């Protein structure tokens, strides 16, 4: 297994998956760029000993029992320089996430401080954890099974309470139960097909093909419903991405900060200040919404700014929705998005910003309340709104629009719905294809052995989700999904 702290996500070759359980490993456990607190996690036989060497507190960490929390300071034992004030939580095997001795340092600092803590732990003998290694260790130590391992990754990645609820539900095994049910139904169908093959000499009722058909349809429909849940699952897990774009200095960053309620984006009066793409998650009615602030779009000769503009268009292409911010004190009609750059299917709102700066009594909206779509119809998915990012006027309406978009994007959403991740989706798609082929073969009157071939394939696919068959691919797929520290 290769280790890398940054760079391209990579696939783990399962035949080379190995972990040395005698070594102690550490990693930053909180995702990049999220939250003010950061956690560094240490796990393995030497975890408490190594942690103790870098920790100065009222008590020696090495002597502490499991499930105890200690306030202290992480120092560099070589220089005795203080790095940060931390809370250290001690876990004793097997009662920890990995089933091994473990320590978690909860520090205030940002990325740099966390990296320094990691650095002193490594110089004291810990190794850097590979992506997914904590989960892999938990799995190897018998703490979790495959579906649970995946749900934990989702739980850690979950950005809001609603997503956490769905992740918890999967953890409790409702996906497991549904797949088990489906598999059972398919195995029933296989049994009926096999009866007609292996027992034709006997005077048994030949394989009941009508019953097989009903079973295949049932499983096919329920597989379809699980696949629909993928869309909800995706929004809950990855967030609904809203890109803020528009001409320079139209107030994108001000709106971004207003919505994110912090001063993250650099806000100046100089056009073109935001040259990169900034992201922040907000919680909108329980939905994680990923706001993306972008560089202003204008013709420019500045190389760096031009790169930023390119990124903006790319972000707009991948967005679930786009807020196009224009300066209502300028000529609104000239600030509209160039035709064709925002995909027709992407929801779009034109936000006429800075209405607080308009001279009193002046006409507010200079563009019609809806942008026409290609067929010339007013499109209520593409409204024009008057707002002020500085005072908050009209922002509530804007949020209402975003929630409406999410509700539409979310097919048949309910929190009770079982959400699935990318691996589940791939496997369910495979099962669904097998079922279609089987049903076609059945309808065409093909031999039972050919129908059975695809039904068995579908059952095997479903078995892969709940870990009832093991293939290299399943393991590789799972283990490569875990990012460092999760």
């Amino acid at each position, binding site marked *: *297994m*290769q*280790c*890398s702290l940054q760079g391209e996500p990579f696939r783990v070759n*399962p*035949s*080379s*998956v*190995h*972990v*040395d*359980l005698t*070594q102690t490993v550490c990693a930053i456990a909180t995702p990049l760029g999220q939250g003010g607190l950061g956690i560094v996690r240490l796990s393995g036989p030497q975890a408490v000993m190594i942690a103790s060497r870098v920790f100065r507190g009222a008590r020696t960490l090495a002597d502490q029992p499991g499930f105890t929390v200690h306030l202290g300071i992480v120092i560099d034992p070589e220089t005795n320089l203080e790095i940060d004030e931390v809370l250290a939580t001690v876990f004793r095997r097997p009662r920890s996430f990995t*089933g091994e001795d473990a320590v978690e340092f909860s520090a205030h600092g940002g990325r740099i401080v966390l990296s320094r803590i990691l650095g002193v732990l490594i110089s004291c003998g810990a*190794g*850097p954890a*590979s992506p997914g290694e904590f989960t*892999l260790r938990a*799995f*190897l*130590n*018998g703490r979790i*099974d*495959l579906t649970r391992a995946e749900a934990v990754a989702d739980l850690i990645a979950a950005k809001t309470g609603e997503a956490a609820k769905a992740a918890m539900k999967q953890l409790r095994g409702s996906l497991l139960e549904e797949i088990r049910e489906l598999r059972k139904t398919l195995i029933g169908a*296989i049994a009926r097909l*096999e009866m007609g*093959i*292996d*027992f*034709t*000499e*006997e*005077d048994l009722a030949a394989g009941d093909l009508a019953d097989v058909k009903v079973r295949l349809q049932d499983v096919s429909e329920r597989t379809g419903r699980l696949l629909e849940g993928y869309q909800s699952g995706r929004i809950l897990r990855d967030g609904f991405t809203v890109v803020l774009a528009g001409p320079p200095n139209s107030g994108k960053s001000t709106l971004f900060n207003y919505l994110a309620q912090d001063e993250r984006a650099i806000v100046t009066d100089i056009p073109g200040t935001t040259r990169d793409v900034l992201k922040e998650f907000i919680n909108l009615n329980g939905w994680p919404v990923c706001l993306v602030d972008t560089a202003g779009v204008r013709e420019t000769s500045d190389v760096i700014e031009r790169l930023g503009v390119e990124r903006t268009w790319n972000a707009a292409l991948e967005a679930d929705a786009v807020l196009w911010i224009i300066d209502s004190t300028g000529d609104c009609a000239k600030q509209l998005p160039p035709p064709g750059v925002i995909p027709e299917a992407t929801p779009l709102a034109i936000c006429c910003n800075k209405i607080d700066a308009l001279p009193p009594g002046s006409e507010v909206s200079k563009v019609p309340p809806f942008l026409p779509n290609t067929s010339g119809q007013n499109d209520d998915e593409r409204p024009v709104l008057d707002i002020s990012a500085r005072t908050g006027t009209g922002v509530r309406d804007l949020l209402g629009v975003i929630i409406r978009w999410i509700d539409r994007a979310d097919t048949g959403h309910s929190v009770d719905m079982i959400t699935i991740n990318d691996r589940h989706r791939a496997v369910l798609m495979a099962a669904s294809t097998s079922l279609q082929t089987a049903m076609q073969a059945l309808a*065409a*009157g*093909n*031999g*039972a*052995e*050919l129908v*059975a*071939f695809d039904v*068995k*394939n579908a059952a095997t696919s479903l078995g892969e989700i709940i*870990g*009832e*068959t*093991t*293939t*290299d691919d*399943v*393991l590789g797929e799972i283990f490569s999904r875990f990012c460092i520290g999760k």
Partner: protein
Amino acid sequence: MRRAPHIVVIGGGHAGIEAASAAARMGASVTFITQDVHAIGRMSCNPAVGGIGKGQIVREIDALGGRMGYLTDRAGIQFKILNRSKGPAVQSSRVQCDRLLYQSAAQSDIRDTSGVSVVADSVRGIRIKGEAVNAVLGNSGEAYEADAVVLAAGTFLEAIIHVGSSTRPAGRLGEAPANGLSGQLRELGFEVGRLKTGTPPRLDGRTIDYPVCDVQPGDELPRGFSRRHPLPIANRAVCWLTYTTAETHKVIADNIGSSPLYNGQISGIGPRYCPSIEDKIMKFSDKPRHQIFLEPEGMGTDEIYINGFSTSMPVDIQANALRTMPALRDVRMTRPGYAVEYDFFPPTQLRLTLETKLVRGLYFCGQINGTSGYEEAAGQGFIAGVNAVLGCRDEEPLILDRSESYIGVMIDDLVTSGVDEPYRMFTSRAEHRLHLREDNAQRRLSRYGHRLGLVSDDEFEDLKRQWEQTDNHIEQFRRTTISSKTVPFDGLKRQGTVTMAALLRIPGVSFADLGRFGADLPDLEDSIADAIEVAIKYEGYIDRQTRQIEQFKKLETQRIPSAFTYTQLTGLRREAKEKFMRIRPMTLGQASRIPGITSSDVALLMVHLHGNGSRSSRG
């Protein structure tokens, strides 16, 4: 040159014949011990070879260079392919045999095999030196020195026959059991279990009213199992079908208390797929009638085997129940049906070579491994005989995997999962069934037989030529077009021409149909025509099955060192650890099939197998 290995084969049934014959033809010196030399090759139950899933095994034995297919062709009196309405993968041959002819063919075949000396004796035990067997001890007082021993004792170990309340020690009706051996093996540490099987009565054919039965003829074009059989094959007999009546059911139900199966007299477990008539009537009481097949035992006899009427009821009740069927109003029973209980050794005690894990050089095959059926026994016998010789020579054993043969499926099932009833082959046991067909058995397996010296160079060269020819014809069929004017498919008529392959792919169109549509068909052997038809008709499915086999091979080729210590696997569930230590799987694939083993257990094992080493690859 080293001396030829001495192999002792115990038991003259279908497993023993294959073991003795293969070992001798590989150059071993074989002592073939049987209680009664005239019983070698006896068909204890119905006089038929093959059947669904079993026909494939016979073809495999034949392809490997075994004897059963050839003997069956010599003794066959009715040839039939079952599941004709279904695809070629699940079509199986079944041959009704002349019981006496089969047995005499088997005996002369063994007599003509140089290197086999047949000895009439019964066996009381084995002698062990160190961890290996080195002799077989006969009741005659003789000790037969052995480098390896193949035990193929069938249903004879501590066997008891039940007919009504009468029980007697016997391996088959009128044949003494083999007592003592399983006791000795138990003392050595072998686990011993008890199974039960049964056989129906035999009838005097002259007392049967055939006109009230449905006739069951053989196939129009009879096909044999073996290319080695030089004589033409012909259907010489028919079978008959009749049914039980409400009256039959009443006789059985009224007397169920006298059935050893129902009064607690028999404790061994019988096969669910081959229930006694008592079981059929008691467990499926809603069925108004059951099929009964009347099968001739041979050309020179009037004896009839009554298939579907296996029973251990008292003799008079058997007769009364039979006479409730219109065709059997006045029937005379020549032999009663009976049940037999016998010792078997749960086969998880074996390696995939069929050698016992406990005693080196000792191989088990056939019914003592908990299987039923001549074909299953013969398949194991062949593998055990071959591996006994290879083991003596310290050569790589012959282990067929699940993707290349039914024999491999069977042995893997036995050794990895064990049995809880007599094991019979079904096509559904084979996950790569579309590949495991009768038509391609030689292509799958003959190279092994050739390597072992059991398929001659001439025969193998001939096969290779045939395969090449088949491939060329398939190419030809894909390229050659005929006028579509004469084909009865409107959709094709308009396009003017059509390839022969495209026509053959249409459901219901057979190889012979192509000739009727005006194609100029080459004159081909049936087996080649079959292979072409299958290859073209099932192209898509075969491609997909091939990809699955490649996937399967990935885990199957990951060997677990035989000295692997499972105790070092921290985090492995205790239950999983115990299972791995008991079965000692050879590969990760086999490990994954042990019942109760989860994918997590296998993943953990895999990680440890690959991870025993360093973290040196960390970047």
